């Protein structure tokens, strides 16, 4: 546009920028301007109607937060990306929040950290912790209930298999339940308000393995059979422990909290041990 003066051009460009019709981009040669097409203009005009009079800094911050998408972004990262001082950032964030354009979500990993994301976006699982966290609190009761339900299901399955008294191969195979079966059972029980996926159920079943109540095997399954993932299936079975509670814990010394201080002739000794006296009175 050679027929307009540079200064007029600058003024026009600035006005168009402030109206949000142009995008300001930087390249190696200099500054580039691009006209926003009508699709992008849509939400921006809505945004503009809210942000009439706010300055470029706020727009910049908003853009950064928009780019962060689902996961949200931490205030320090915003500062790095926009090169604005901390006080400015805080003011801008408060402004945007009061205008209900962004929201702060507390991260479940570090409870002091606040990540910001657009108001209408759902926070990602890694931030909120997924199905086990509701409002940043780990739902241990929920996990416990699921734990017990899964175990009961597997236990009854093993019981029925044992009662059937067929040949041992069939008995063992029928006492197994695949993770898909357990998932279906839990969904049908309806004890969960949140939708649970098969991976969630598998994490619950893993905790049962760590409790020593359940064992797992992986078998190769054809692609396409119900519940198979990448050609293999996980099967779970209820088991009982291989030894009864061991001898040491039947003596009071096995569970004694002051074991290391106990010796003959001291304050705490076998002769005047109160734990032993109580135990002998059973």
């Amino acid at each position, binding site marked *: 546009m050679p027929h307009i003066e540079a200064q007029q051009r600058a003024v026009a460009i600035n006005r168009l920028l402030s109206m949000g019709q142009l995008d300001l981009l930087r390249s190696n040669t200099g500054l580039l301007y691009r006209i926003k097409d009508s699709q992008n203009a849509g939400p921006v005009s809505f945004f503009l109607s809210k942000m009439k009079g706010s300055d470029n800094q706020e727009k910049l911050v908003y853009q950064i937060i928009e780019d962060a998408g689902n996961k949200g972004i931490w205030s320090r990262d915003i500062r790095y990306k926009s090169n604005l001082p901390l006080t400015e950032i805080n003011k801008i964030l408060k402004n945007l929040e009061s205008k209900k354009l962004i929201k702060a979500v507390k991260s479940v990993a570090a409870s002091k950290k606040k990540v910001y994301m657009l108001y209408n976006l759902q926070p990602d699982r890694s931030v909120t912790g997924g199905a*086990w966290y509701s409002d940043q609190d*780990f739902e*241990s009761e929920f*996990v416990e209930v699921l734990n017990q339900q899964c175990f009961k299901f597997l236990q009854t399955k093993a019981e029925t298999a*044992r009662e059937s008294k067929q*040949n*041992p*191969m069939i008995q*063992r195979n029928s006492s197994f339940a695949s993770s898909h079966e357990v998932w279906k059972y839990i969904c049908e029980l309806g004890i969960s308000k949140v939708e649970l996926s098969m991976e969630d159920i598998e*994490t*619950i079943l*893993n*905790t049962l*393995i*760590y*409790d*020593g109540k359940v*064992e797992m*095997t992986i078998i190769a399954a054809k692609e396409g059979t119900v519940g198979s993932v990448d050609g293999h299936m996980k099967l779970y079975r209820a*088991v*009982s*422990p*291989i*030894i*009864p*509670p*061991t*001898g*040491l*814990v*039947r*003596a009071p*010394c*096995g*569970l004694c909290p002051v*074991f290391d201080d*106990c010796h*003959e002739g001291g304050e705490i*000794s*076998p*002769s005047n*041990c109160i734990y*032993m006296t109580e135990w*002998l009175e059973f």
Partner: protein
Amino acid sequence: MTQAEIKLCSLLLQEHFGEIVEKIGVHLIRTGSQPLRVIAHDTGTSLDQVKKALCVLIQHNLVIYQVHKRGVVEYEAQCNRVLRMLRYPRYIYTAKTLYSDTGELIVEELLLNGKMTMSAVVKKVADRLTETMEDGKTMDYAEVSNTFVRLVDTHFVQRCPLVPATENSDTGPPPPAPTLVINEKDMYLVPKLSLIGKGKRRRSSDEDATGEPKAKRPKQSTDNKEPIPDDGIYWQANLDRFHQHFRDQAIVSAVANRMDQTSSEIVRTMLRMSEVTTPSGAPFTQPLSSNEIFRSLPVGYNISKQVLDQYLTLLADDPLEFVGKSGDSGGGMYVINLHKALGSLATATLESVVQERFGSRCARIFRLVLQKKHLEQKQVEDFAMIPAKEAKDMLYKMLSENFISLQEIPKTPDHAPSRTFYLYTVNILSAARMLLHRCYKSVANLIERRQFETKENKRLLEKSQRVEAIIASMQATGAEEAQLQEIEEMITAPERQQLETLKRNVNKLDACEIQVDETIFLLESYIESTMKRQ
């Protein structure tokens, strides 16, 4: 030898043999092998008493002797063997279950006397059995000898090492102490004895003199003393074989708990078949073919060959990995993985202790770290599904008790804590050792408490003993009912109650010692098996 072990040994020696033997024994355990004069000097006891104490200890296989250069004989105590004395009731009970009362008494006599000749054992056991039988019946020697021979055949009883017969004994002065040797083949050879006779009741007079040099029985003037044909051949109880039996029992019951009764019977058959063929420290039994197993199943277990094969396949595929398949000849060759089995049993013991002491959530974390080998703090919380604060608390508690240890992996050479990975891990061998030490101390505590309880009520016990003696003597001289009643009432009702409580407490403490000993056995076997593999 740790302090706890020494304490336990001293308590056991004192209870079984008395003060002097205890002093000598503990001194030897503490200071290793020493010659006779040094022992006498250090403990301040007279030479005579030291000799007698050493005699007792050697007779019971608790002390061994060696000739060193320059003709010095040094004595060394075997701490492990002393700790076995805790297990005597279990050995006797096993003999009872396998060979009924006769076997029980034979093993009891052997354990109480250390070493004995066969004829002496047979005679004593027959006498004891006759005591308990009804009037007019006696126990035949032949029956007792048969049980003895059966015990030797299954290796529960073995010969003691002997003095080797020297051809020319005048090649110089005899050595200060004989070196005992025993041939592997001869260990289980029973000499041909014709022991004819029957058990005698206590009141009747003894006929034959025994071959035992230490016998203090009064010599009978009536009969001539025939030389006992097996003089010099002494027998002792083979503790290793008993341990093998206990281990087999533990494995069979583990399989029964995890799978079902039939599988455990199959495993028991396999173990029985490899009893005498597999040495006690081997990690695997000899491979057994499925046909052999089928033939050796106990009568009355009629399962078809196919079903047996299915069970064997199931056992081999089980995650427990007790049974492994080593080949396909003869219908499938199967071995029992003894080392793995002991490892699983020791791990289960550790888990059980953690569960009882700290709770089931801690047990969950413990098993998790066991399975995954090395984990970070965050990963522990995620996998175990336990809130972060509680998980941290539990991990630190277990760390302070040394069940779990930390492994540091630095990111930078200066090992700065903020730039280091800290991984939690479980070292089973060291945890087992720690727990074993705790078991020893617990048993020592239980024994002390038992002695304390008896000492507290000593006066009462003495009184009741006196009353019993009076009653017995009065019954012998034929007193009346009324007089007996009067004597019995010398013990008042609350005192009787106290005696009852005392008896109950002492029994409880005794039973508890044996239960802790079961844990000791599992942990010791695992540690021994692991050390042999290294």
